[in-house]
């Protein structure tokens, strides 16, 4: 049973990826390039060289966190689409604090303060949709999406005005102080931030798989009425989950600021943005922490590999965004599960009407 389940999940995750790569391959063929070569460059350097792999892990760090941030809410059927906005806000103020700290401050303290600020900002921004959902039944999906746009505009305003670094030729905030930066380990880009992310991953693994809260997340996601009737106080759990999600997003933003970007620019999070990447990762990983970890590393490999594509071929690296979109698209359809499930469900529908229930005693 367990192995069968695992196999099903594997097929459901791998098949969409393969399909997306096939279609991506066709697109590459159409612009006159060899898809296999392109994919070789895409994944070869980022996964199969030591330095490349460490870089991949480096870029995976924020993705692990945003992936977990999405997974923890999506699993409970709460659609927190605001991870991107929460991440940006956390990053922005972690960056501002990082520039204004005294240079003499102990580096560990400085980094902890910056991370804490990021986490706090993420939580505060997540609280808005959380309160609206938990106490006013407002659809959290629409609200978080709207607030994302609003937040991007606000940060744009702050970055171009109040906090702008006028010595730079383009819109950005000042670079954070050295004591707030995560230094590189060895000659790769890897920093302590990766280990922070792994530490958080372990905690989230325990929370989601072993804890009372994890049990409640599953129950709320599967049947909210049952969850409420068995005393799980769903509105409080929504608040808690949104706070966790916001904290993870804020941490991701702060960490990315302190380990990679060092200043806020208008394209800080890239396109489509670390928060949106997180969604792909959560879906790819089936909302399970281990799945998220693997998916984050795989996706980070795609991202770092995309830069190599630009260097070594004429295929625009944007092909990776197209593949990403296709993966999510195909992930929406559960190829194995859904079909067998549909059959099972139809059968059960007909057999489990009160009249025809197959009872053990019958």
């Amino acid at each position, binding site marked *: *049973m*367990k192995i069968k389940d695992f196999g099903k999940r594997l097929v459901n995750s791998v098949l969409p990826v393969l399909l997306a790569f096939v279609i991506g391959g066709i697109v590459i063929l159409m612009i006159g390039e060899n898809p296999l070569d392109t994919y070789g460059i895409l994944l070869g350097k980022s996964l199969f060289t030591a330095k490349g792999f460490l870089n991949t892990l480096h870029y995976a760090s924020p993705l692990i966190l945003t992936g977990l941030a999405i997974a923890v809410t999506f699993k409970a059927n709460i659609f927190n689409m605001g991870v991107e906005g929460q991440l940006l806000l956390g990053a922005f103020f972690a960056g501002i604090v990082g520039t204004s700290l005294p240079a003499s401050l102990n580096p560990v303290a400085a980094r902890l303060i910056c991370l804490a600020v990021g986490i706090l900002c993420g939580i505060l921004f997540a609280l808005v949709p959380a309160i609206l959902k938990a106490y006013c039944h407002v659809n959290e999906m629409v609200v978080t999406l709207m607030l994302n746009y609003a937040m991007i505009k606000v940060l744009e305003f702050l970055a171009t005005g109040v906090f702008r670094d006028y010595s730079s030729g383009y819109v950005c905030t000042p670079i954070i102080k050295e004591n707030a930066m995560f230094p590189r380990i060895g000659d790769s880009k890897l920093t302590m931030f990766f280990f922070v992310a792994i530490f958080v991953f372990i905690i989230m693994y*325990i929370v989601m798989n*072993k*804890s*009372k*809260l*994890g*049990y*409640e997340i*599953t*129950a709320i996601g*599967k*049947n909210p*009425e*049952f*969850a*409420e*009737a*068995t*005393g*799980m*106080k769903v509105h409080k759990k929504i608040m808690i989950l949104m706070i966790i999600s916001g904290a993870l997003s804020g941490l991701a933003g702060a960490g990315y600021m302190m380990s990679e970007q060092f200043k806020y620019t208008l394209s800080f999070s890239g396109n489509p943005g670390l928060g949106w990447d997180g969604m792909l990762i959560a879906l790819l990983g089936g909302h399970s922490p281990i799945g998220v970890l693997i998916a984050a590393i795989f996706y980070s490999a795609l991202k770092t590999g995309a830069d190599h594509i630009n260097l070594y071929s004429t295929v625009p690296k944007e092909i990776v965004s197209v593949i990403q979109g296709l993966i999510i698209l195909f992930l929406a359809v559960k190829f194995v599960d859904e079909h067998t499930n549909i059959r099972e469900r139809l*059968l*059960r529908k*007909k*057999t489990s*009407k*009160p*009249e*025809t*229930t*197959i*009872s*053990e*005693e*019958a």
Partner: protein
Amino acid sequence: MSIIKTIDLTKKFGDFTANDKINISVEKQEIKCIVGENGAGKSTLMNMLYGLLRPTSGKILLHDKETEINGPMDAIDLGLGMVHQHFKLVPSLTVYENILLGTEIKKSSKSPIIDRKKEIDEVTKLIEKYKFELNPTDKIEDISVGGRQRVEILKMLYRNVDILILDEPTAVLTPQEVDELFVNLKELRAQGKTIIVITHKLREVMELSDSVTVIKQGKVVGNVLTKDTSEEELAQMMVGREVVLTVQNTAANKVMNEVAYQVEGVCTINDYGKEVLQDISFCVHKAEILGVAGVEGNGQSELVKVLTGIMKATKGKVSIDGKDITNKWPDELRQDGLGIIPEDRYAQGLCGTMSVADNCIAGYHGDADVCKFGLLDKKNINAKRDRFMKDFDIRVGDINGNVGQLSGGNAQKIIIAREFESNPKMLLACQPTRGVDIGSIEFIHKQILNFRNKGNAVLLISSELSEVMSLSDRIIVMYKGKIIGELSPKDVSRSEIGLLMAGIQK
């Protein structure tokens, strides 16, 4: 000449034979009742007649001609209409729109616009022809359940069916609505229609039908004319042995004077602001079962929701052993000693897509024996599940599988095991045996009585009047969100309670 006839009709679901060589024959212009226990295979049979299920083998003869029915539309074209237990109506549309759904009348054959006036005229004529009581322009969401059922029947009649199948038509009706329905059905028979009614209520069979077919475990076990039989005989055929429909409610039990659970002046409103519970007050003593009788939809559902903490009361007070528990949340109620058997098993009691073990701890998943420092103890949880299965004779196909695979009786036993586990002082049992096989019904009834005999209090809410009457020490009757009477089951007859359930006070 029979209008519809089946020959050796068989339906198998995998290894399970739901219908085994069923032979029935319905005469023109008769009212035929098909009776049987839950799970006997009545609905399977009807679904085959209506084209919703394909027979595994056997034949269906319509007007003595072998006919293949490939779906509801096909059935309707062949003159066979069905009124389902769960109505297939659209609440935001009007009566006439629902009746004409799919056969709308347009202003002209080319115009895309619907001709409202002509539609209303047409439906008004139809309503008059069959002497039904309905207003064509009312919205479905505003009319009574009985009214909705009449709309369903008219929907079929408009399509000129001459055989009408009704699946458990009286389940959701008040006694008066049942009477009205019977009048309507007899009028239809007089106008030449043939009617097949599926039911398990034997009194109604006697009152309504011309002939009866009894089904047991997928087989026909009796074919009789109604005038030649009796309720008792039918019951015996249905179950296959002398039926003790009433569990022995031991006379030895003595209700104590001490109040265990008290409800005072509880009110609440629905989404539209309408008061659905009005000033509900009662108390349950120690070692007492208080039964709540009433036709479904008279506020029992809301009362249970309020008492189990999933709905808020706007006014009033609830207390257990003198402790105020008004509007507390379900987890707090359980901590205060309330055991809950909820109304809808798979909505509030169990999660069909979670494992048996996970369901065994639901509601008590924070208790010290399974949860330490916020972490769940898998070993203890599995041990608990195994103990439940042994103690309560719960039969599970795949022990690691989901609860959804279980039969009604076994699923209900999980809830009962779980709720009794924490030694509650008071049990709130709502529809405890709905959709449960007879064996499990007996078991569950015994459990409830034992619980009471140990000196605990029970509030039993059920739409099965016989269940309420046989188990309760005292009965209150709900009608339109109010308690309109309190009686002792020993001193009253069914019909007296029936009158109260219909809102008629002496």
